[in-house]
């Protein structure tokens, strides 16, 4: 049930952190495998959701680092993935999705994860502070900066949030 309840949200977070759906799927499997292995040590100091996203965050960062070591190049955020719609699908929706991925990848990693965890996954600033190891006010400033930059980038791609 953990996987039913949180699998889609974890995948979406990983995909937008990594800019690559296939790698996000791999990372999601690792996240839930680790969650099952670690469930006995879960102390209940945070909600299960916060705990799971904490694992997802760490494994996504690992994947970003290993990709950079392996490829020696930035993640290709515009590469086609299996998620691409067929030619008959809505071209505009695809363009918007690509703009989101591209603009997210332009944010620094710490800003990107804060924006996603706040705007996509709805964590509060105190929760984010505990998760990211910073003061809630610092995270709030990071999210504010990130959303403004994201908005400008999207508008440059003619996507109006």
């Amino acid at each position, binding site marked *: *049930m953990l996987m039913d309840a949180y699998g889609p949200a974890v995948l979406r977070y990983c995909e937008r952190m990594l800019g690559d759906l296939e790698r996000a799927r791999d990372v999601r499997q690792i996240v839930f495998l680790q969650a099952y292995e670690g469930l006995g040590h879960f102390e209940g100091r945070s909600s299960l959701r916060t705990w799971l996203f904490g694992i997802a965050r760490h494994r996504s960062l690992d994947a970003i680092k290993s990709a950079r070591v392996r490829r020696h190049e930035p993640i290709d955020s515009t590469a086609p993935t299996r998620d691409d719609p067929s030619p008959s699908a809505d071209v505009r929706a695809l363009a918007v999705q690509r703009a989101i991925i591209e603009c997210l990848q332009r944010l620094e990693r710490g800003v990107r994860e804060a924006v996603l965890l706040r705007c996509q996954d709805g964590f509060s600033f105190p929760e984010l502070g505990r998760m990211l190891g910073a003061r809630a006010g610092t995270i709030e400033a990071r999210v504010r900066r990130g959303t403004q930059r994201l908005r400008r980038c999207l508008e440059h791609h003619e996507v109006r949030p």
Partner: protein
Amino acid sequence: MSDDERAIARLLAGTGLREDDQEWTQAVFEAIDRRASRSTPRWRPLSILVPIAAAAAAVLLLPRAGTIPAGEGLPLPVLGRIEVERLAAAPGLRGDDLHPGDTIRVRARLPAEGRSELWIYREARALVLRCAGAPQCERRAGMLAAEIRLDAPGTHQILVVTGPGGLPGPTGKLDDDVAAVIAAAGEVRLSESIEVR
């Protein structure tokens, strides 16, 4: 949320991937099995994982809500398995789907040790039944059975929770309640979600 956050949140929620990989949970269970068979001693300190993983694997084999067989007289469920059967359909509604007004019976075999309760949630946010003395519940011969009329549509989750001594009282939020049971060194067995349409 600020205006910028709300605007970005709307955009992120309105776009995104389509889940086209239906087998990923099975892949996770297979990975758990592989690791367990490679390094059995590693699992010993994590005794809580075994029933959870076993229960989760078992419930994958359960029929979905749409194919729940009607009728009675099922054998005693195996440990860790939660069985659901439809007892009565809402007047005027037929078919395999569960609807508001249907009555279901839930049965679960209980571990020999500890104190166990059965909790049923709707949408992971509302506790619709707590079998800890409720009149709809019957406990005998190591088994807990409950009959419940499904009053509202939504996804229902069924848990059997067992604590070594006592159990924390459920708050009604599935997420928090599972966390509290695990934090109290308890075990949680989960059913496949039941869809009421």
